Every structure is written in structure tokens, then in C-alpha cells.
């Protein structure tokens, strides 16, 4: 009730879209300049010093920069949500969404009409992308690694801040695909869950030193390192493993609600330590070879275990617990008062490994779904960017496993979709405009703006004033290197389209993408090129782009629908 007083009235803004133009165009400029393999890097840092982030990835940019306009906050939140779910196609979503808002805003058509029609256009796109006849998607064959490698390479190449050369890209792409393959269970019918790839940072080494190791690496301090080699094996020639998630430090913790009165001369700590040593005895009797504890192990117990040739690793941390259970098949033990042998797991072997200055215990399982990617880079800032790229690639492979499709990269999907829409609208528009209750010309204008926005995403791939053109047959996207005069005979100049599927031939006719409005409708449906997976083809994740497209249009619609902003000033 005290807030009856001293509460400031809220700020009421009508027609919020009139105030958003300037910050929106600034945001578009930032996002577009980052897009694609030739994207410009952004150095993000705090004026007060500290951490510097060098990046061109949407996930880093969107989480680091802050905007003040509430409408842009909604837009950024939307893209960030997409990225957190799909990792890829964040910039595509953001650029498309911004372009849609900008071009729809300039149309001066009632927003509810625009929303209805753009929703209709979106459904045309999604239906096409889902249909067998779609000319801009390829199916991914998991028995053929080349497609997977193309997918991963496209992701790595499109992150210029990773500073990778071609050899490094190839090396990492192979590692990432290999690591992914390790996480796919051999017998999915019994356990249909993907394993885990744990990234181990090693800074100060060359990228080419990166490696994939089956099993799990747990970092340990050097002191323990010397004693690690002889591991005790049980009868079955495996190493028995006990994993504890309860503290074994011997400290009394977790005070209960009531009071404990301890008589003189009784030491609960001693009692606890006795119990720990009992546990140690049982572990030794049970022929356990490796004990891993999430928390701290008491030095006496550690020494006792060491003396009995049991390797003890403590302070493993919570993040390791899940892959640890997966790799060993053990159940984390939560009580030092009762130890059930059914909790133990097993490993094929345990050995010591070291990379650069770091030492690890390497847990080698019998049948692994867990692997470790040792990721090396000399530069710490670039390592962060590289890690983000690798995680994106891994996630994309997982998404592709769920839906084995990929879309053509290099801007070709966008231009192809736009030319498909333009052609589709020509045949449909009279009936469609009646369905959504608007005039034919309004429908045409909105559809043009929609296609233009799609093409403007493809146009963002060019950063050097190079022209972007599209062919009239396939609707693919072609980048003209900068510095060439606008000639009529593009066929001589261009070799391959953006995705690398089509080679230029004499009989192709061309269209500029830049001045777009009023472009002539295309009479024939864009042809479907005979898609053979070429060696260096640019591919995008289907699930991510499909979702990004929908999220971009829905977010743009949502923002166009705003009639006022009420800002709490308190």
C-alpha cells in the first residue's frame, strides 16, 4: 500500500514505429556488416577495460550490445531465443526481421493487412521448403561424409573472426564430424540418447594440434600425475569405478533443524573420518580401481587409497558428473554410510595424458558415446570465438540428424525463395488477395516488400561494393567481385553461384538485386538444378534456417502490430 505514493506516472508513446527508424537502421547496418564469410569483425569492449570480444557472430553481438528502444529489445530477445535454440542462422533471422519491418513500415498499408498477407506469404515459403519439389534443399546422407563436412565447413568459413585458413578449416571440420560420430550411440534401439562431446580448452597451441579423443578427460593438478600409471583391474579385466557426488572431506555439514549435544570427549569429525576409512576399505575390497569425487576427498582417505593402488580424483565438479555417469555407467553415490556394489561402473582403461601444460586423467570406456575435443588456439580471444563456432557446428549436426536436410548456402536459398514467391504470386494473387480481404495492388506491394527483404539478406553477403545478381533460370545468388564495371555479359565473369552448385553458362540471363522495387515478374518457375553434392558446396542447417525464417516474420508482424508503448518510469 505504501506504493500509493511516490510512483511516477508511466510514459505513454503512441505510434512507436515512428521513433524506431533511426536505431533500427543502425542495428541493420551493424548486423549486415557481420554477415557471411567476408563479414567485418566487431571488437566489443567495455570502456573501463577488461575483456575484449572480437566477433562477427550474432550470439556474441546480441548478448553483448544493449539497446534502449523497447521495440528493438523485443527484436533482439526474439533473435537471441532463436539462437539459444538452434545456434545457427542468428544473423539471417535478425537481418530478415529488420528488413521486413523497414520495408513494411514504408508501405503505408494498414498493419493488420500487412500482417495477414505476410503470414500468408510465409506459409507459401514454409510449404515450399517442406515439399519434395523444393529446389533449394538437399537431403543429407549420413553414410556420405562429404555433405556433413560441407555443412561444418560452411559454418566455420562464415565465422571470419576464427581466423582459420583453409587447411585449418578442413582439419577442424573433420574433427567436429568425427566427434559428432562418437556421440551417436551404436545401438540406438536400447539407448536412443546422443552422447556428449566435451570441449577441452588448450590455449597456446596451434589449431592444427587440436584432436578428438574418445572417452573423457578430467583435469588434475600435476602433483597426482606421477602416480597414475598403474591401475588396478578387477577380475573381468575392466577397471571398476566408483563415483561419489557427496563430499568425502570428513567435515560435518548439512546441520539439521534440531540440536545435537555432543558429550565431552566425543569427536564427530573423528567419527566421520572413521566412516570414510571404512568406505575406503570397502572400495579396496571391492577391487575398485578409480574413485572420482565431485567434491573434496579427505587427505587421509586419499592417501589410504593411493597406498592401495586406487586412483582418487577429487573436485571433479558438477559439469563432469553427467558425462562421467555416461562414460562409466556408474550411479553417483550420495551416502558414505551404505555402499551398494550396483553403483560401480567400469572402464576399459585409465591413463594419463597431457596437453601443453595441462595434465588429465583419461578415462577410456568400452563403448563410448562420450568424447573430448581438445581445441587449441594460440590466441585466447580467438579461442572463444572458435569454441562458439565448434559448438554451433556440433549443434547443427545434431539438428541435421533429426531432420536430414540442408539448405543451399551462399545466399542462394534466399534468392531462390524470392524468385519462387514472385512467380507463385503471379499465378495466385487474384484469389489470394480476396482471401485476406485486400486489394490486388496492396497484395502485390506487400509481396514485393517481402521478396525484397529476403533478397536483401543475400545482398548483405557482399561487403566490398561488389554487385549481387541473380540468374533468371535457377534463382541462385551470384556475387560479382568488386572493381568490375557493370557489364552485360556476366557469364564470362562469374564462375560459380553462391552455394557452388551452378556453374555459369552462356544461356543464363541475369537480374540485379540492388534496385528492387518494380522488378519484372518471373514467368516460369525457378528450375531445379540437378543437385550433386560438389566438393566445396555451401550448405546451411535446414532446421535453423526454417525456424529463423518463421521467427523473423512472426517477430516483424508482432512489432508492426504495436499501437503504443507504456514505459514504467520507476
Amino acid at each position, binding site marked *: *500500500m*505504501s506504493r*500509493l*505514493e511516490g*510512483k*511516477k*506516472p*508511466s510514459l505513454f508513446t*503512441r505510434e512507436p514505429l515512428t521513433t524506431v527508424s533511426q536505431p533500427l537502421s543502425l542495428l541493420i547496418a551493424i548486423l549486415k556488416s557481420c554477415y557471411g564469410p567476408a563479414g567485418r569483425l566487431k571488437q566489443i569492449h567495455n570502456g573501463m577495460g577488461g575483456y575484449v570480444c572480437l566477433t562477427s557472430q550474432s550470439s556474441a553481438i546480441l548478448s553483448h550490445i544493449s539497446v534502449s528502444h*523497447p521495440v528493438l529489445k*523485443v527484436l533482439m*530477445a*526474439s533473435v*537471441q*531465443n*532463436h*539462437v539459444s*535454440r*538452434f545456434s545457427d542462422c542468428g544473423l539471417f533471422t535478425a537481418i530478415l526481421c529488420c528488413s521486413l519491418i523497414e520495408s513494411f513500415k514504408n508501405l503505408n498499408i*494498414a498493419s*493488420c493487412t500487412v*500482417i*495477414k498477407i505476410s*503470414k500468408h506469404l510465409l506459409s507459401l515459403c514454409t510449404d515450399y521448403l517442406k515439399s519434395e519439389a523444393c529446389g533449394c534443399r538437399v537431403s543429407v546422407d549420413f553414410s556420405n561424409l562429404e555433405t556433413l563436412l560441407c555443412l561444418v565447413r560452411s559454418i566455420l568459413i562464415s565465422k571470419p573472426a576464427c581466423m582459420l585458413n583453409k587447411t585449418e578449416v578442413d582439419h577442424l571440420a573433420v574433427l567436429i564430424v568425427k566427434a559428432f560420430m562418437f556421440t551417436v550411440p551404436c545401438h540406438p534401439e536400447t539407448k536412443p540418447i546422443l552422447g556428449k562431446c566435451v570441449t577441452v580448452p588448450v590455449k597456446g597451441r596451434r589449431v592444427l594440434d587440436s584432436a578428438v579423443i574418445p572417452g573423457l578427460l578430467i583435469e588434475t593438478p600435476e602433483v597426482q600425475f606421477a602416480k597414475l600409471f598403474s591401475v588396478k583391474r578387477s577380475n573381468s579385466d575392466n577397471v571398476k569405478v566408483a563415483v561419489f*557426488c557427496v563430499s568425502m572431506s570428513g567435515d560435518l555439514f548439512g546441520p*539439521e*533443524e*534440531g*540440536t*545435537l*549435544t555432543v*558429550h565431552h570427549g*566425543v*569427536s*564427530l569429525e*573423528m*567419527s566421520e573420518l572413521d566412516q570414510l576409512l571404512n568406505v575406503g576399505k570397502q572400495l579396496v575390497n571391492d577391487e575398485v580401481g578409480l574413485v572420482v569425487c565431485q567434491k573434496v576427498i579427505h587427505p587421509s582417505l586419499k592417501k589410504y587409497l593411493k597406498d592401495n593402488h586406487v586412483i582418487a580424483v577429487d573436485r571433479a565438479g558438477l559439469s563432469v558428473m553427467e558425462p562421467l555417469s555416461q562414460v562409466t555407467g556408474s*550411479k*553417483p*553415490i*550420495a*551416502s558414505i*554410510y*551404505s555402499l*551398494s556394489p*550396483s553403483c560401480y561402473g567400469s572402464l576399459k582403461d585409465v591413463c594419463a595424458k597431457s596437453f601443453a601444460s595441462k595434465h588429465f586423467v583419461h578415462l577410456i570406456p568400452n563403448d563410448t558415446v562420450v568424447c573430448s575435443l581438445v581445441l587449441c588456439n594460440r590466441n585466447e580471444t580467438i579461442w572463444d570465438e572458435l569454441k562458439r563456432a565448434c559448438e554451433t557446428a556440433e549443434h547443427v549436426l545434431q539438428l541435421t540428424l533429426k531432420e536430414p536436410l540442408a539448405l543451399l548456402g551462399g545466399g542462394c536459398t534466399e534468392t531462390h525463395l524470392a524468385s519462387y514467391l514472385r512467380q507463385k504470386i503471379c499465378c495466385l494473387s487474384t484469389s489470394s488477395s480476396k482471401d485476406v480481404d485486400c486489394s490486388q495492388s496492396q497484395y502485390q506491394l506487400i509481396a514485393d516488400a517481402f521478396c525484397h527483404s529476403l533478397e536483401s539478406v543475400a545482398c548483405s553477403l557482399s561487403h566490398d561494393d561488389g554487385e549481387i545478381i541473380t540468374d533468371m533460370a535457377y534463382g541462385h545468388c551470384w556475387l560479382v567481385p568488386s572493381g568490375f564495371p557493370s557489364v552485360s555479359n556476366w557469364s564470362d565473369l562469374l564462375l560459380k553461384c553462391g552455394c557452388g552448385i551452378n556453374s555459369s553458362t552462356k544461356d543464363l540471363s541475369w537480374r540485379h538485386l540492388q534496385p528492387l522495387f518494380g522488378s519484372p515478374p518471373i514467368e516460369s518457375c525457378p528450375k531445379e538444378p540437378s543437385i550433386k553434392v560438389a566438393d566445396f558446396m555451401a550448405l546451411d542447417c535446414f532446421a535453423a534456417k526454417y*525456424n529463423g525464417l*518463421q*521467427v523473423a516474420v*512472426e517477430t516483424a*508482424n*508482432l512489432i508492426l*502490430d*504495436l*499501437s*503504443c*508503448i*507504456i514505459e*514504467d*518510469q520507476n
Partner: protein
Amino acid sequence: EMSQGTVSAADVAAALAGAVRGALGPRGGRALLVRPDGRALLTRDGLRMLEALSLQPPTARAMAACACRHRSATGDGAKTFVLLLAAVLGAMRDGSPRRAARALPAFERRVLERAVARGLRPHLRCAFPAGGPGAELEAAALEALLEAYLRGRLGPGERRAVALLGCELCARCGARRPPALRLLCDRFAQLHAAAAGLPLARSRVLPGVLLRRDFAAYCPAGGRLRAVLVTRCLRPVLAAPGVECAVRSERQHRAALRWCGGRTEAVMERLRSSGVRLLLSGVKQHEEVIYYAKLHGVSVVECLSSEEVALISEITGISPYDPAGDSVQREIAEAAVVTFCQPLLLGSQRYAHIGFSSAGAFQPHCLVLCAPVDAVNEQHAAALHGAFTMLLQLFREVGQECRAESQNGASGVVSRYSPATETQVATESIACSSSQVSEHQLGGCRDETTAQSSDLALQESEHPDCMSPASAPGPQSKELNVCTDGTDSAGTHTVCERADGINESHRKHPAVCSHRNYSTAVVSTATLCEHLGVDKGPEKAGCGVTQSCPCSILEAGSVLPVGGYFEILLHYYIRQYAKQVQQSAVTVISNVVADALLSIPKALYGTERNGFTKFYLETTEALRKNQPLPVNEKGLESVYCKYQLVTSVLHCVTELLNIDLIIGVKRPLTGDSNLF
């Protein structure tokens, strides 16, 4: 000084109306609310917008509070409330406010109630085709109601999809009948989950319930299994709060701890051997409990909120199991049957997805809402929750409270919730006898198509001889003495809830509802036939006490096409019935309210040129000629909510007009209904 107050109140109301008008109706846009912590909230809900405005003028705060109170009760109409209020106050600017305030109750009683009960009745449709007790909402009507409601709450691209989701959820939960609908409405927060970063099209209705917790232990199990609910930790403690435990030796301490562990394991073994494979806990369980659960193949979901625990109890009918205090051997009676239980990942949030077998009418299903941003999900969830609240109101009816005009001026509206099971014996016999009488009377007045005038002259609601003690206003109803002495401060409540008593037993059977002794009878479309001399009829003697509260103004389930039809109809009939009232003050008020009602369709048609004029002319023309209304609109709206809206606005106006002084105080006020 009083008229000064009214002028400013009218201005304030107009300003408020200006703020919410942009979000009204199918063409309205949504508001982006930025909360103090910077989080965005998207909404078209008038309640949220009015709250977010953090209004300062006391009159505006009072208006917003009234609007919000109405919205909270009926799930709808905060924006319309403000618009109507502004229109009424605007039109009253010139007249004497005190006179108007005095005339309002009389208007409500003599004109408004009749206009609704008699004028509107022939146009109403019923959303329960089966009718009567145990009414079930028709599937088509449900869709029409939801879609029409969501038009006012969501953007053009989302309405249809969300309405279909709402329909599916209702249908699959069995919530087309009141008990399950009430549970769905009350527990909607637990019955839906949201995922951001996905398009709306990915939203789904899932069987079972999503608990907002991950499994603390998950042991996959196929087929049907038993589940128990606990609300305390299963591991015994050495010393409970306030208990002192003495430790004499180290061995004793170890033994005690070992006993605790052993006891925990024994409980878990007991559960497992009774077929329990799932433990649902309202509290955090000890690590050992989780450990033993894993060892015995029992899945555990812990830290459930009290709402989730209540939901599980309501669905399955079980109460929490308590192993303490007795032997571990006791049979576990209170176990729920679960058809499946599995983890579900929605974005970064993990859920426990559990298929409970229902013990009641509610079939557990939950809704997963997807949208690019959380703010949209919140908007969709709030809109659906509002829609379910609105649907619940559909099962209510408006009854006319018995009263003596000479004694109190306040109009009494009895609103009743009609439960599915009800004793009908007494009512039916009365209804049957009265229907015979009605039939007899119908013959007499069939030719008179407009018989209202003579009827009104009779002052139907005056029953001086029937004012038995039983029919006096009950203890729940507050009286307003606005008429008798104007010095009184403004009272508020004129709606009194009566869930029991005489009114309850007087629910009519559908077969006779159109031939009721006090209600209008519809002979053919738009042909009104009013009873004459109902007061003196022979049924009075036979009916006794029940007769003193004879009819309802609105039947449960009454709906009208959406889009201003209610307002135009009410406008038309208020004008018609106002002609028959002698008091000039009431006539003036009638005209004010009738014209104010038109402001709503005007706002709905908004930018469309001549849209409103055309609509108005077509509709009134049809009414004048007794033709069916020209409706090209599939959406429906609840007449109960609309009628409540009009009466709430009138009460708010009465309140505002009766205020003569605003006193500002520095101390915080204590009160229960201070929304601001």
C-alpha cells in the same frame, strides 16, 4: 463544486479512453509495456494497460480500479468499460450530476432490465444445445466464442491458431462443462508451459501434466505405474526442530546415521514393492533419498510448488503419503495411477511430463505455447486464461431480485452460478402449471405484436403483497439509499451473489423457459408477446414464496454475434422502453446511456469510412421491421459479460457522481480492494 468534479471526471475518462482505444477490437494493435526491471510485456488486455499506466489523478485511479474489478470478475471488457464510461460521463457533462445519480437506479430497474429481459431475449442464442442442468458448451459455439474473444486480445496473425489451441485444450480436458472448466481456469498457470524462440505453429496440446521440475532421479519405466505424493522429507532426521539429540559416543553417532539411511532405504523398498515407480515431492528430498530411489528404480520429482501439489491432488484425488510415525509395513493406499512419465526439454527448461489418470471429470492435458519471445507467450497465456474465465461466466445467469420499489431504490441483480446437478422437482411442477397459464394467455395476445406499453404500465416488479420476510433482500445484498437521501456517500455493491436459497430452486427447465410466467414469450421471430396481468394470475396462489423471485433477466449460455450487435440492440430497446417511463430524469438518462452504447461499435468500426453508419442503419431497419438481424459474423460473445459490463459502468458512474470531495492523505490506506 460538484459540477466541477463531473467535468474533470469526464475529461479524465476521455483521456483514459484515448489511451486504450488503440487496442480495442479486431483492428486494434497491442501495447508494449516496459516494466521497471526493463522486461517487456506485450498485451492488449485493458487491465494490464490500465495498471501499467500508473495513473496519478485520483478520479482516474478510481475509474481504472472499477474497470479492473469488472475485468477480473468476467475476464473481459476493461477497454470497453473505459470507453463506455467516458461516453456516459461525457454526455452527462451538462446536466445536474446529483439528479442523474438519483435517476440511474430507476433507469436500471425500469428500463435497462426490461430492455435486456424482453427486448434482447428474442435475439439471443444459446451456447448449450442440450440446455438445462449439466449443460455442455457446444463445440462450434466454443470456437466462435474463443475466436471472437481473442480478436480483441491478440494480433491478426495469431488469433485463429490460439483459438484452435484453446478449443482443443478445452475439448480434450473435458472442460466444456463447468467443473472441469473451473479447474482448467483456476490451474491454467500449471497447465501450460511456454517455449521461446519457436514459431507459434509449433504449439501443441499434450496429454498429461508438465511439472516445472526435472527428475531428480529418472528410471525409465514403461506402461502404467503407481505414483505417490509426499510433502515432507522421507529421510528421518536425528533431531527435529526443537528436539535435542545427545551424542554419547562416536559409535552411537555412526549407528544413528546408518539407521537414518537404513530407514530411508526401507521406505523406498516398501514403495517399490507396492509397485510405486514415481515419487512426487513437494519439498526438497535428502541426497540419500534420491540415491536410494535410483537404486530401487523409483523416479523422483522434487521441489514441486504448492500449486502443483494441489493440482495433482485435484486430478488424481490422492492426498500426500506420510511414512513417518508408523511401521514401514503399512499398505500404501493413496497412490495415483500414471500412464507415462518422462523428461521433456523445452528450450533450456526441463520438465517432468507425467500422464496422470484422472479420478474426476477433468482429463489432464496441458498446453505448450511457442512464440519467438516470452512476452508473446505470456500474452497468449493471459488471453487464453481470460477466455476461460469468460467461458465460465457463460454458465451464469442474471436473475431479478425481488424487492419493493418503495423501500429501496437500488436495483438488485441476483447472479447465480448454475451447477450441473440440481433438484428440479419443485421447480418443474411450478413451471408446468405456469406454462399452461402462459399458453392460455398467449392465445389472447398473439395479435398484439407490440404489447409492451400496456405491460409496462403494470409495473411488473411491484409486489407489495408478496413482500414476505423470505423475499426481503438477503444479508449478502447491500442496499443503496441513493434515492431516499442524497447526502449519503456512494455505495458500490448492487450485485449480490446468491448461490443458494429460493432463487436456486427456481431454475427453469429448458422446455418451458420460453413460456415462463413472467418472461416474454416468443411466438415467432422477433414477435414479442408480453403477458398481461401476470400479477393477478392464478399461479400466484399456487406458487407461494418462489413466485416472489420469478424470472431471470438472462438465461445461462446466452450469446450474441460479436461486433456491436449487443450495443445496437440495447440502444434500440432502451430507447423503446424509455418512451414508456414518465419520469423525465429517467428518460434523459436513458437517452444518454443509449447513445453512449453506440460509442463502442463506433470505436470498433473506427477507421472504416461509413462502416458504422451502414451497420447502424441496416440493423435498426431490420429491428423496426421485425426482420432477423443481418449477421455476417461467425464470432459470438457472452451476453452475461456484456450486461455485467453495462451495469458495472452505471454503478461506477453513480459512484463517481456521488463523490463531492477528494481527500488526500499521507499515510498508506489499508483496504482490500486497492488495486493502485
